[in-house]
């Protein structure tokens, strides 16, 4: 089995808090990994480190067998969909412009059309990105992430502020990408039910990694689920 990602003893120390504490896991080809954890569990720090945005970490991160400190080439094989893409609301870019930004090679209009059709946003291609709903914008950013045929798709809690119908469509798109196009997916969420329903692997993170394995193994273990729910509930109370 081919290792797509290997995380070894990853620790990230911020001035006042240890954001990640000795986290190790691997992601294999074809995995659909749901990373769950309450707010402040270190999910965003984990992604920032994996994507080369945070370089102040201890431990080792390997993509496709290569240490990411040695080469940034791995980024070419990754599509990343941020939690809430930040851009000026009146930024003059059409859907087509945004997807094209993601395209590495010389502009290939057919490829863009194909992706837009696949994600049901073809009819929006000439609209300005800021005019679209949250769900539509999210699909545009998935399209941008997919336009280079990545081997791995990383999505950071991508359903914040999106209507139910768009969420369903989003999950069905992810499942299809994973099962038909064999794209490995790493997806962070705090929706336990959604992870149970869609992911085939689960990593349970709360600064430390509490669990990593097949999702059935996690969800059939009532003790683990209970522990996670309590931890996230406490965190929730703490935040309010």
């Amino acid at each position, binding site marked *: 089995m081919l290792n797509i990602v290997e995380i070894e003893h990853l620790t990230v120390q911020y001035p006042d808090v240890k954001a990640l504490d000795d986290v190790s896991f691997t992601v294999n080809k074809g995995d659909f990994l749901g990373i769950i954890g309450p707010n402040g569990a270190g999910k965003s720090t984990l992604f920032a480190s994996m*994507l*080369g*945005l945070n370089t102040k970490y201890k431990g080792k991160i390997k993509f496709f067998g290569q240490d990411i400190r040695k080469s*940034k080439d791995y*980024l*070419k094989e*990754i599509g*990343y969909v*941020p939690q809430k*893409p*930040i*851009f*000026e609301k*009146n*930024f*003059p*870019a*059409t859907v*087509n*412009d*945004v997807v*094209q*930004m*993601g*395209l*590495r090679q010389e502009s290939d209009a057919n490829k863009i059309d194909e992706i837009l059709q696949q994600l049901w946003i073809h009819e929006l291609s*000439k*609209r*300005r990105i800021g005019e679209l709903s949250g769900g539509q914008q999210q699909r545009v950013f998935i399209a941008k992430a997919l336009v280079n045929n990545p081997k791995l798709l990383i999505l950071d809690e991508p359903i914040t502020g999106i209507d139910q119908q768009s969420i369903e469509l989003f999950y069905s798109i992810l499942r299809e990408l994973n099962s038909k196009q064999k794209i490995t997916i790493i997806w962070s969420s705090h929706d336990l039910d959604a992870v149970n329903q869609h992911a085939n692997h689960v990593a349970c993170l709360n600064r430390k990694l509490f669990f990593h394995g097949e999702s059935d193994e996690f969800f059939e273990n009532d003790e683990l689920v209970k522990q996670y729910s309590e931890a996230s509930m406490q965190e929730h109370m703490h935040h309010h």
Partner: protein
Amino acid sequence: MQRALISGVAIAILCSVIGLFLVLRRYALFGDAIAHSSFGGIALGLMAGVYPLWTAYGVSLVSALVITKVKEKYNISGDASVAVLLSSGIAIGLVIIGISGGFTIDIFSFLFGSILLVSVNDTILILSLTGVILIVVLLLYRQLLYSTFNEEQAKVSGIPVEKINYLIVFMAGVTVVTSIQLVGVLLISALFVIPNVTAIMYGKGFKQTAILSISFSIFSVVAGILVSYIFDITPAGTIVLLSISLLAGTMGIKSAGLLS
């Protein structure tokens, strides 16, 4: 007159294109800051007996790069760093002018522009710099656009965002000094900002917006030069007022509900 129009059109195109990136990066006053710092360079050149635009290029590029570095390193916000740069340039300029014996006609022509007096050599310089910068923008179009749209995502896509940021600042520095002859130090940011703000209200996509901005800018510059020539008034003020009237007209159309 012909030289004024040719140089004016080149500068109009250049300022629109670079200005669009600056406006979208919330860096609208950066052009103004570099222009003011170049005032220090102009004063230095006049005092030293060197062609003032050369010293202006030097000083404005150095200050543009310094301010970007300072902003990065000390985490000073964009508008505050612009304010620092802006006042430093004027202060240095004033002190140098004081030392070398007060204001002269030359200083005024740099403050308010002197496009009708542009020389053949200046025209050639303006055209070549415009050509070079436009070629760089076309070659690095995706990198420039992507890092303006969202820095973090651009980084994840492997774009060298820091280098691109420096490149934009560098190109802005060159553009500002090149444009001093058209509208002068005090009105440069108008050329960077106003046509772009107007175009953003109309355009859907990036290229469409850029083309609209360039058109508005060329219209204001050409009409401004002609009107000022005919009525013997200052070109810089006329150009800026024309471009403001395009913006005001657009706002009117928009509030009348004729523009989505």
